[in-house]
């Protein structure tokens, strides 16, 4: 099989992933997009490994390694998203802007405790 097919597929996957990371608002979908980008890289690694006929198969080994790390990462990521949703009642990245620079002295970030309180009641 020609190298171009998996390479093009990887580029498409990566672009979809970038689009998702930059454009989606839902944190879970952003995480899924990150996974897409990772897997595009994995696909490249496997394809080039085969194409280069590497006797040690470093590409495939690295792919397995990335899959393991990605599993851990997505586990933690989803847990964070879950907690954020419980505390804030939303997982919308556009609205999670507590770390922004305040415009002026009056423009304090919204108090998280108060919001978490109301969100907790909502979920309960």
């Amino acid at each position: 099989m020609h190298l171009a097919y998996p390479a093009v597929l990887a580029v498409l996957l990566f672009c979809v992933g970038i689009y998702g990371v930059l454009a989606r608002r839902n944190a879970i979908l952003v995480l899924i997009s990150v996974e897409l980008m990772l897997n595009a890289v994995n696909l490249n690694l496997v394809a080039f490994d085969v194409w280069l006929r590497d006797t040690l198969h470093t590409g495939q080994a690295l792919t397995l390694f990335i899959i393991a790390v990605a599993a851990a990462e997505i586990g933690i990521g989803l847990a964070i998203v879950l907690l954020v949703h419980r505390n804030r009642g939303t997982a919308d990245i556009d609205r999670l802007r507590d770390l922004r620079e305040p415009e002026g002295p009056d423009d304090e970030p919204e108090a998280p405790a108060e919001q978490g309180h109301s969100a907790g009641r909502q979920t309960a």
Partner: protein
Amino acid sequence: MTTTTLAVLVPLLPFLGAVAGLLLGRRAPGFVRPLAVLPTLLATCLAGVIAFQHGESDPLKAATELTPTGNAALPVELALHIDGFAALVLLLVGVVACCVQLYSTGYLREDRRYSSYAALVSLFTSAMFLVVYSDDLIVLLVGWEIMGICSYFLVGHYWETRAARDASLKAFLVTKLGDVPFLIGILALASEMGSFRISTITARLGSSLSGFHLDNPTLIALLLLAGVAGKSALFPLHTWLPDAMAGPTPVSALIHAATMVAAGIYFVARLLPVFAASAAALTVLALMAAVTMVGSALAALAQDDIKRVLAYSTIGQLAYMAGALAVADRGAAVFHLVSHGAFKALLFLGAGVLIHAAGTNSLAAMSRMRGLAQRAPDAYWTMTIALLALAAIPPFAGFFSKEAVLGAAEHAALGDAHGVPVGAGWTVLISGLATALLTAAYAARLWLRAFHGGTQDAPDHGREPAVMTTVLWVLALPSLAFGILYGVLPDWFDGHSLTPTLITSVLATGLAGVGGIMTYATWRHTTVFAARVPLGAVAAHPERDPAVSEVEAIVSHEPAYGDRAGAPDPADPGRLLLGPLYRHAAQGFHLDAVYTALVVRPVQAAARLVRFLDRTVVDTYVRGAGLGPRLLGSAVRRAQTGNAQTYLGALLAGSLVLAVAAVLVAAGTGGA
């Protein structure tokens, strides 16, 4: 114990007493009085022993190197030099300090700050001992400066009053103004003569074989004179002394009459060959002395505060000593220094008793009190003796010492003194005779107004503490009889005769008599006015400290009379005697106003300028330097939106640009 050990103990004992007094003052109040009196008393006894062992024999010298200075030929040494001058002045300082310490136990008996006061007086005494004994200029300077700072603290003892705060600061600043040239003068003198030892310097100057000579004798002598003028209150640096009367009376007696101001005179006496090397310096000294003595005597005639009268008279008597030095007779100067120290300390301590008994420090108020002499008989009799000594009436101590000064001046005026300008002699002689008249006049005025007033009875404030009146009699003895020693003293000094000469004695005593009689006549004439104008703010606390009466007298003088120096009293004989001069004399001839215009205002203006430069000019640059980064920072802060996707987008765009650039560069170099 050898005499050297004894001599070392003399300054050390009061110093240790001062340290112990400062450390233990709060914890063990019972020890404060013994710690104040005993070390000084013991040191005085030792000083007496030393004086009688070494007064007439060769000078005692001992030295040990204190510290190297970087120049092996110029070490700073802890050196002693005890000759007749040192022994006698030391005895005077010890006796007066003892009297003052004893007197203070009564005068400030309930004062809250008595322990620190007594410790500072001890420290001051120790510093004066050091100055008198030291043969090394740098060690002498240390004692000199310790006296300055002790004087600052002691004058400011009643720091609750504004007058005392101002006076202490003024005393410190004015004496320091003289000390700066003084230090330069010492260094210049030591570098030209190759030694800090006074005895070495005078020996090298005296011998033509030593190979040392002064290149700039006038400059060095004038630099040293500035410090002497500051310390010994000579014109034009005398203005601190009358104001320093805002301190407690014992302090005035110790510091501003008998010891600290004597340090300058004593210093010149020790280094007289340096001053005698320059005729110009002697002339300047003579002129300073002449202006000081006549001016201060006129000012004393117009003062209303009894202590200010005495302060101006101190300035005048110091000028007599300076005059004796200007005609290069240090024996006469130290003779007058010692007798003046005794009778002036007595006058001040008596004035302290009087202020307590009358409840006021104003002569105008005292002149309206009948029977003050009966209320304070000890003060009356001892002050009478001291005033007679001050007016140089034979046979009191002041007569012999003043005649010694005038005799030396006459000697110089007739051209008999070697190396002394004749003009200096005439200046001192004429001003000295004029001052003799004025001195007798203000002494008589003080005596008549303080003790012989009388429209209403003096308030009865109870008896004075016995310790205070005893001290007065102790000091009355030398005031009465010290002058008789004029025949013995030349052996202790340089050997110049101190016997009064006929012409000057007759002239000066005659003038003094004229002054006294004139004042008496004027007083008889003006005293009828006293009945018409009742005056006075009398503070009375018979059961409290005498010091309390004094503080209240100082505070109430200005509101009561509108002025801290004079009082608008038509019964004052000085007003009639001085005529139109009276107003100016009361203000010390407006020298303070001149200093305010010449020094204080420019300094304050300069301070305002510096403040303006700092606040407005320098700070603007500092703020401007901060402004640019602040603006830039607030612009960059806008990018911090809190939206992670924006950050990622910017990151991606940035890496794309970098990648494209890298590719282009690689292609460019590859193509080339």
